[in-house]
């Protein structure tokens, strides 16, 4: 049994899980008398590492900076230092007087007080770990009898009858020293603490007689496989395909194979031969051009690019296209967006209160730029996990490294939750989930409450990773206020880094913000009638409500003023806005396993580390261990990282992954269709220095990628899912590509990158619909740069299955529902683009036939057939006849009237009134957007 490998068995009392800045690894309680020598030594070494700042081997009271009382307890020989001297056996040290065990029988009042005020508290708060009946007695301490309290546990006697301040029990429940605070589930009520103090002061009266018994109910274990408790055989688990080292298999050679051009082709051809299918013919040039242009840039080939490629008959014409596309900035916008799906990127927290993350866009830009620079993929990952800990060559790289760690900070969070420990644990859980699924294709989060159901991830491994992330500070920003109980500072960017300050406030938003400040800013407070010494309890309900309102308004005003202070009066972002979400190392701590995820049942403490199944004896090193983790993720020894990434690339070029569950390479996922090919690609990626672009180049220049998408009945019968890629599967374009292509065909798409994001103009909670609508209203930039708000996905993107960033989404849904048709028929974005495209077509100096051809080139990347042209001609005439001449003035009046009726049609004021000719061309343009062909890559 290997699961307790890194469990340290001592000092469980000290593992009381304290999130916040104060969790200690091993508690100093182990230092005190009753603990075994070995534990005491370890505990002391831990304390020295933590507190002995001057490294003299002794901790003086200044270094200790904690409750003096606990200092005195650890300084057992009373020499004014906590040092190795204190480890000497108790009789050598000037031990405190042992408490007397003589007890007088309690009085009736004392019994009643004990039974009503003390025993229930002890039973409720302590017995689960500190009683004879506890499933595990923690820290060898029992509190179910006075004798047991006097005997104490690893930290010595828990009770000195009559001495309130000298009793460890009281010290623990007072929660003064957070390394010695009990119960772990949270501080007792003040009344309860007072009762315990009073009881100790009374001399700790405890009535005779047995503890009222607790029933033990036997519940039969479920049959075999259903039980969640199981032992993991690591040796056997390592045999699983995805944990095996990446090899570099040789591509099969087939005699007389003239079809294959590349190694990739040879793997696929062999698979086809084995299945008995034959590859279909090649796609025509324009089909291939449209395919590769969308795949690499998310945009359609322009009519000029189409012409140039048709004319270029040189033998390397395809290579030239691929190199041009890989070099364009649109490449990063396309593949960057793919990574953003995996990184569950969004600019608000989602969950209950949906707090905005106005600086998240810097991470978005980092991803796009990294893809464009072809940053080695392992370095790309490393920066995201631990960029803050990496060496940087200058301010630019330093800034990039910090921004990259935004990855850890921008996941979904429940800012409204009340329990800070729960918030931290959920934050860490989300980080583990994103990292393990996104980078490793493992669902490690499943092991939060119990050993993983399918994969060799014991619960200890989860908490080993959680320790790394709990030793990390996550800087996600935001302000306190209604709906937000959890905030963190943002990281300032280094001076001299060449980065934009942020978006420019639109006048509308700036005005709104300023007005809000004015409205909320309190009048100078009139003197309160009751005077300032008034007790809280004496305030009336109204007064309390007013005070609360005032406090909340104060918070809002402070937030808005701080926001406005980062912009000048013209709305330009100032240097003060050079902030990023990100991560930094915090206090290093190992944490205890929480079975069933329960906070109040801490188990054994586990050392920070990587999952045991990866048997590389990786040292995670100093600090949080995040750098060690990142280096391991980025390592060539890691069997998963390269496989998972090449599979994602494959998915985006061939429609589905070689592993069809791209976020799950565990046994709950599917096995690779072509294991050897997958390994070959992974090896190729690593050999190229983790160059994403080289691998993509290799793939899109393969013969497999050149194939047509035509059907073949005989092949279909054998391989209906096109596993062997005997043809190019049809793929529906993603939401972003559909929207961008519509705007592009209309001539409306602004290809430049906006500075920042609209979300960067605001702060606070996204609760008001107007705000969401303001932020998500149409903006003619590429979709990747539109606001990405959880729970408020832009309609044009949401309707075609853009992800909500709730979790890693490596393979998007692909639905085909009538809501999409409604969007394409009636949505204003589509109607406006249709108008613009009609204007563009009518501005083109040519015949009707030439205009129709231009429309086809723009929208579908090919020429229309003559029957298509004829049909369209006929349609244009017919539609013109159905369209009345516009009557501008009355039309406006009519709209005005309509607006007052509740059942008004959508506001069409932004749509240009059309001549019948223009309306007909717009309807035709819209039809092109609506075709199956427009949204499909063949």
């Amino acid at each position, binding site marked *: 049994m290997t699961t307790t490998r890194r469990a340290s068995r001592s000092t469980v009392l000290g593992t009381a899980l304290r999130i916040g800045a104060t969790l200690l690894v091993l508690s100093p309680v182990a230092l005190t008398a009753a603990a075994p020598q070995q534990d005491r030594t370890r505990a002391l070494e831990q304390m020295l590492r933590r507190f002995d700042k001057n490294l003299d081997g002794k901790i003086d009271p200044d270094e200790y900076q904690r409750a003096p009382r606990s200092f005195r307890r650890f300084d057992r020989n009373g020499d004014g230092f906590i040092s190795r001297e204190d480890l000497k056996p108790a009789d050598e040290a000037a031990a405190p007087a042992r408490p007397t065990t003589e007890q007088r029988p309690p009085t009736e009042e004392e019994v009643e007080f004990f039974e009503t005020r003390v025993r229930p508290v002890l039973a409720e708060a302590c017995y*689960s770990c500190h009683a004879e*009946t506890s499933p595990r007695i923690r820290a060898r301490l029992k509190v179910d009898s006075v004798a047991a309290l006097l005997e104490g546990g690893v930290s010595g006697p828990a009770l000195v009858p009559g001495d309130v301040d000298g009793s460890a029990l009281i010290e623990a429940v007072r929660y003064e020293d957070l390394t010695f605070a009990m119960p772990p589930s949270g501080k007792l009520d003040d009344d309860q603490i007072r009762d315990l103090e009073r009881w100790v002061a009374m001399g700790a009266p405890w009535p005779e007689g047995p503890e009222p018994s607790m029933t*033990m109910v036997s519940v039969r274990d479920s049959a075999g496989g259903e039980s969640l408790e199981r032992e993991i055989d690591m040796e056997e688990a390592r045999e699983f395909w995805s944990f095996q080292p990446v090899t570099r298999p040789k591509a099969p050679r087939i005699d007389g194979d003239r079809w294959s051009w590349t190694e990739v082709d040879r793997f696929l051809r062999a698979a086809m031969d084995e299945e008995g299918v034959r590859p279909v013919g090649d796609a025509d040039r324009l089909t291939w051009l449209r395919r590769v242009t969308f795949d690499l840039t998310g945009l359609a080939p322009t009519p000029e690019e189409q012409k140039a490629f048709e004319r270029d008959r040189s033998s390397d014409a395809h290579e030239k296209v691929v190199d041009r596309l890989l070099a364009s900035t649109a490449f990063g916008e396309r593949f960057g967006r793919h990574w953003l799906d995996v990184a569950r990127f969004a600019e608000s927290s989602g969950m209950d209160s949906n707090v905005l993350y106005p600086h998240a866009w810097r991470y978005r830009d980092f991803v796009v730029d990294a893809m464009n620079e072809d940053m080695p993929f392992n370095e790309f990952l490393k920066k995201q996990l631990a960029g803050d800990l990496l060496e940087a060559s200058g301010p630019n790289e330093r800034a990039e490294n910090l921004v990259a760690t935004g990855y850890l900070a921008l996941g979904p969070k429940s800012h409204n939750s009340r329990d800070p420990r729960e918030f931290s644990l959920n934050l860490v859980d989300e980080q583990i989930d994103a990292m393990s699924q996104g980078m490793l294709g493992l669902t490690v989060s499943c092991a939060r409450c119990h050993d993983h*159901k399918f994969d060799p991830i014991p619960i200890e491994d989860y908490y080993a990773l959680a320790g790394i992330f709990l030793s990390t500070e996550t800087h996600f920003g935001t302000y306190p206020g209604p709906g937000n109980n959890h905030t963190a500072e943002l990281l300032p960017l280094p001076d001299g880094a060449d980065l934009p300050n942020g978006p420019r406030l639109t006048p509308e938003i700036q005005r709104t913000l300023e007005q809000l400040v004015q409205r909320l800013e309190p009048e100078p407070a009139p003197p309160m009638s009751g005077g300032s010494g008034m007790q809280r309890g004496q305030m009336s309900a109204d007064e309390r409500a007013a005070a609360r309102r005032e406090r909340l308004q104060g918070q809002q005003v402070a937030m808005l003023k701080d926001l406005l202070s980062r912009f000048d009066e013209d709305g330009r972002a100032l240097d003060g806005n050079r902030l990023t979400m990100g991560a930094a190392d915090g206090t290093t701590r190992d944490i205890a396993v929480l079975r069933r995820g329960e906070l109040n049942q801490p188990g054994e403490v586990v050392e920070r580390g990587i999952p045991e199944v990866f048997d590389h004896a990786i040292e995670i090193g100093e600090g949080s261990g995040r750098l060690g983790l990142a280096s391991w993720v980025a390592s060539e020894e890691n069997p998963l990282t390269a496989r998972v990434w090449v599979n994602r690339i494959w998915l985006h070029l061939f429609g589905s992954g070689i592993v069809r569950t791209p976020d799950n390479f565990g046994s709950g996922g599917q096995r690779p269709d072509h294991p050897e090919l997958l390994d070959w690609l992974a090896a190729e990626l690593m050999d190229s220095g983790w160059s994403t672009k080289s691998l993509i180049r290799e793939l899109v220049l393969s013969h497999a990628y050149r194939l047509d998408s035509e059907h073949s009945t005989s092949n279909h019968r054998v391989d*209906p899912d096109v596993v062997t890629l005997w043809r190019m599967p049809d793929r529906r374009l993603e939401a972003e590509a559909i929207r961008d292509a519509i705007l592009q065909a209309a001539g409306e798409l602004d290809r430049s990158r906006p500075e920042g994001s609209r979300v960067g103009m605001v702060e606070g909670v996204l609760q008001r619909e107007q705000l969401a609508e303001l932020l998500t209203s149409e903006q003619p930039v590429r979709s990747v740069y539109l606001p990405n708000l959880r729970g408020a996905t832009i309609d044009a993107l949401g309707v075609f299955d853009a992800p909500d960033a709730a979790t890693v989404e490596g393979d998007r849904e692909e639905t085909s*529902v009538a*809501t999409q048709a*409604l969007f394409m028929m009636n949505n204003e974005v589509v109607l406006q683009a249709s108008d613009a495209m009609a204007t563009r077509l009518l501005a083109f100096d040519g015949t009707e036939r030439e205009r129709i051809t231009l429309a086809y080139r723009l929208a579908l990347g090919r020429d229309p057939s003559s029957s298509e042209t004829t049909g369209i001609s006929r349609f244009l005439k017919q539609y013109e006849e159905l369209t009345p001449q516009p009557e501008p003035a009355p039309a406006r009046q009519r709209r005005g009237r309509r607006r007052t009726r509740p059942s008004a049609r959508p506001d069409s004021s932004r*749509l240009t009134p059309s001549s019948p000719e223009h309306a007909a061309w717009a309807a035709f343009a819209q039809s092109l957007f609506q075709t199956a062909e427009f949204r499909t890559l063949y």
Partner: protein
Amino acid sequence: MNPFSHPSRRDALRMLSSGFGMLALNGIAASQARQLASAALPGRAKRVIFLCMTGAPSHVDTFDHKPMLTKRDGASLSGFRRGAKLMGSPWAFKPGGKSGLMISELLPEIGKQADHLCLLHGMHTDVPAHAQATTKLHTGSFQFVRPSMGAWTLYGLGTENKNLPGFVTLNPPRNQGGAQNYGSSFLPATVQGMPIKVSGGRRGRRAQDPVADIRNPRQSEKQQRAQLDLLKDLNKANARRRKGSDDIDAVIESYELAFRMQSELPELLDITKEKKRTLEAYGIGGAETDAFGRQCLIARHLAEAGVRFIEVGMGGWDHHRNLREDLPAKCREIDKPIAALLADLARSGMLEETLVVWSGEFGRTPYAQNGDGRDHNNRGFTSWMAGGGVKGGFSYGATDENGIEAVEGRLSIHDWHATILHVMGLDHEALTYPYAGRNFRLTDVHGEVARDILA
């Protein structure tokens, strides 16, 4: 006809738009028709309203009365989950209706409808993880992408109203399997569920217009028809160029359906014409009940209009902590609306041919978590059915006396699916679809109909 050949989506469409009977008359897709016809049973229900409670409601605090658990409150478990402490339901159970089914005081209004309910106490599922179990609940599989039960039902029975989608899902969650839960997978894309957003009146977005873009702001119907005719021609030309590319048919059909929906759907989603009394009964306008009340009322409209499978979603049942406060609040959100829906359907006689199903993806542990919460429990939980074809005021199956594990009348998700299909008049073993060389079923190779609950 080759038995392995893939029926084209066009064939499937024709079957769907005409339903079973028409299918045979039209003499199309012989093998497929035969296959479907062989699945036909004399069913009682014509449609399903599935009230899907994601997050997993606690069965021992709602529909599974456990007096022994209450007695043992605070006791520690040995064996499985050693050390965990049992927590009796903090709420009392009361007999409801003439049948006296025991239902929690948290659901007083549903309690009054007890005589319609058929409680299934023996439910169990594979995995205590939300996403997997939710996908399993909807599709019968959590490892593979498979058609949802709504899609299977629609595929088997066709639609009754060609102007509406045959499978509608109101406010489906984006996570927990997302679109897979209403997806068609290898079945024709046209049997996929259509998601409709219904928002509460206050916080809601476009409360007037639950389906975005349901109207064109400037085209007349004639103009739009002409445009869609052009679109159809263009798509057909494309289908000829790419012979065999099935998605084109689905796109054509989605536009035709959208066009027809424009006239019919807004009316169904409009609740303003309802009587004040009805709105009140459903809790519409109530602070806690407005959102779900709207969904339930719209579900009734859709059922009346002939939608085959309607799913109504309510999440937020994942009470790991703060159970004493949060569970009552959640129950209040659904209690009135569901009771009103049942009463409404019963009054109009529609309940006899409508199967109402209520279920979470699993249940919760009878032992406490975090002192005031309950953990996931896949080993035993309760769902219920009401209406067409099942016994009312009936209780079937049981968990052990603590409520941990289903011990009597055990129903796996496959059994549950088989039973739903059976009530709908479909033989789950005969309702198959050929894909990748074999015939697939909703119930895979499992499933047994719970015959004891059939009326």
